[in-house]
């Protein structure tokens, strides 16, 4: 055993100096490094997301030539236009209907996939996710062609059953149906894959315990599966609500808002008036109307995601 034979003073002085220097050094090093590593991210978010978002509010208060401040003038103008209210209504119908059907179909399909023997699941999952993988602009072109007024492959097929011809994109009601159909086709696989991941994470013993307690398949879903998946269902649904509400590609390509602006949603109408109509302030005002619903959804998602984080 070696007892350090160093006197109190000899240690104390150099140590204190060293502590202070080392501390400052360490502080400087670690937080500076961390700051430098995150700097590009901070710059990107500030300059290309936060600033444009604020700028958009500023733009919304200008007149068409962007030389005069008009306050809420653009909003007042919008409130007086029938098209605007059409857009509000159609955006809500579109987003809510599409999300509900995506969620339901995704849930059902996930169950069917989960239900079959494990070795075949990969293959089916692979096929069912294809709609999500194809760029929506490209797949919507295929739908447009399937819906074509004169050569529609759907109408050709339906004619065998004595149905049709259906004006898929020509009639307002059918056009609304069509954009929702394409959106459901595109988005349901995302729900399917999320639910499938959640289903796989439910411990097998819970089902066994429920089965021993005498639960039938419906009760197993209701009392075991759904409660266990509640969080992921909420996150996926809210996320999809944001994406669907802000959708552009599908409506733009399939109907471009027509017929008679009946299928416009916020994004496509903002593009129409802001970019095509060169009224940037009015376009900015239109897209700002998405903010409240997006903000509400985002807050709930954030809550659920952090809850998930705490659970794990």
């Amino acid at each position, binding site marked *: *055993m*070696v007892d350090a034979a160093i006197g109190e003073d000899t240690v104390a002085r150099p140590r204190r100096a060293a502590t202070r220097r080392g501390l400052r050094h360490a502080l400087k090093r670690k937080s500076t490094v961390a700051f430098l590593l995150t700097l590009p991210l901070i710059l990107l978010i500030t300059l290309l997301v936060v600033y444009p978002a604020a700028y958009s509010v500023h733009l919304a208060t200008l007149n068409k030539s962007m030389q005069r401040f008009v306050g809420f003038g653009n909003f007042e103008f919008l409130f007086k236009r029938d098209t605007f209210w059409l857009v509000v209504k159609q955006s809500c119908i579109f987003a809510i209907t599409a999300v509900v059907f995506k969620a339901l179909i995704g849930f059902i399909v996930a169950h069917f996939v989960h239900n079959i023997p494990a070795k075949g699941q990969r293959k089916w999952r692979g096929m069912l996710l294809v709609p999500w993988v194809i760029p929506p602009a490209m797949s919507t072109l295929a739908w447009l062609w399937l819906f074509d007024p004169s050569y529609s492959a759907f109408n050709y097929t339906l004619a065998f059953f004595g149905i049709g011809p259906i004006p898929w994109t020509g009639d307002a009601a059918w056009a609304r149906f069509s954009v929702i159909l394409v959106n459901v086709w595109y988005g349901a696989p995302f729900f399917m894959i999320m639910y499938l991941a959640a289903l796989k994470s439910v411990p097998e013993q819970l089902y066994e315990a429920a089965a021993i307690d005498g639960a039938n398949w419906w009760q197993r879903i209701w009392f075991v599966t759904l409660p266990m998946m509640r969080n992921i269902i909420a996150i996926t649904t809210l996320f999809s609500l944001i994406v669907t509400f802000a959708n552009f590609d599908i409506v733009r390509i399939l109907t471009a808002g027509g017929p008679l602006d009946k299928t416009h949603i916020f994004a496509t109408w903002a593009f129409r008036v802001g970019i095509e109509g060169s009224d940037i302030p009015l376009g900015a005002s239109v897209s700002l109307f998405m903010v409240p619903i997006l903000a509400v959804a985002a807050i709930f998602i954030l809550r659920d995601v952090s809850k998930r984080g705490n659970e794990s």
Partner: protein
Amino acid sequence: MAEVSLRKVVKRYDDVEAVRGIDLDIADHEFVVLVGPSGCGKSTTLRMIAGLEDISDGDITIGGDVVNDVPPKDRDIAMVFQNYALYPHMTVAENMSFGLRLKHYPKAEIKSRVAEAARMLDIADLVDRKPKQLSGGQRQRVAMGRAIVRNPKVFLFDEPLSNLDAKLRVQMRIEIKKVHQKVRTTTVYVTHDQVEAMTLADRVVVMNKGRIEQIGTPNELYHHPATRFVAGFIGSPAMNFLPCRLEETDGRLHVRLTDRIAFPLPPLRAARYQSVSRNDRLLLGIRPEHITETKPHAEPGVEPFEAMLDVTEPMGMETLVYFGLNEAPVCGRVSPNAGARDGSPLRMAMDLNNMHLLNEATGLVI
């Protein structure tokens, strides 16, 4: 090779003191084990020696140099972690040589050092495997190999065996001891397992609530614990503590356990405890192996008594018996042939030559 010493080392997290002033001197080549229950500050102490935690107050020296502000890589230490912390994407050889490669050692020397460590640890034919392909014991060896190739001044082990199953733990314990006998590097080893501490250490440091309770060789701690905590922590099954009083009867000092049971103290003990106040609330500390069945030839200081057994646990070479004395639970060790049965009486004997007397209020051994 170096000695390590800690002077009044303190670690504060916000308002909690995890380590409350530790003084410890570890000699060159010594194998010191820090042992204690979880949250006693042993791991924090080790991590402060490693430099992974800042020191709130005090000094740590390695080889005579104060290292308080020296970053871990410049302290010339090596550490073995609880979950091994092997780099999953590197082979065994790459894992072992990573530190040397960072320091730009010549390739030939790295190769020879890895080969030597691998040979010493009996993992020479595993050097091209990835950690995923290894068993728990093999990973443990690689983690030790990574420490050995560095040839550091100090080895630090942070509960290295707690992820292994019981059988492997015993085997690796011996392995660690062998390695230390070969390389003789100063070692600080943290564990919560007192058996590990006893079997490995030159000296054991028992820690509790951020303080050192006692430092000593394994035998010192076992036979001469200084506090109730050490007495209870070291040894398995744990020492029995029976509330008692001292009293003078017929001119002899007795220890009274219950209204009916009072044992005369052996002369040596009686002399030592003469000055203890007769009114103090005391604890009789006695290990289970000193509570046995009565032997045909009664030795001096071994006092018989009657016990009503609650539970018996046959262990093969001995049977553990549990009973109560005045509400206090007692564990004894009897021969398998003593006729101990659940719920039946047995004539027992207590060897007071090996007793400890503790002050209940202070928790100190008298």
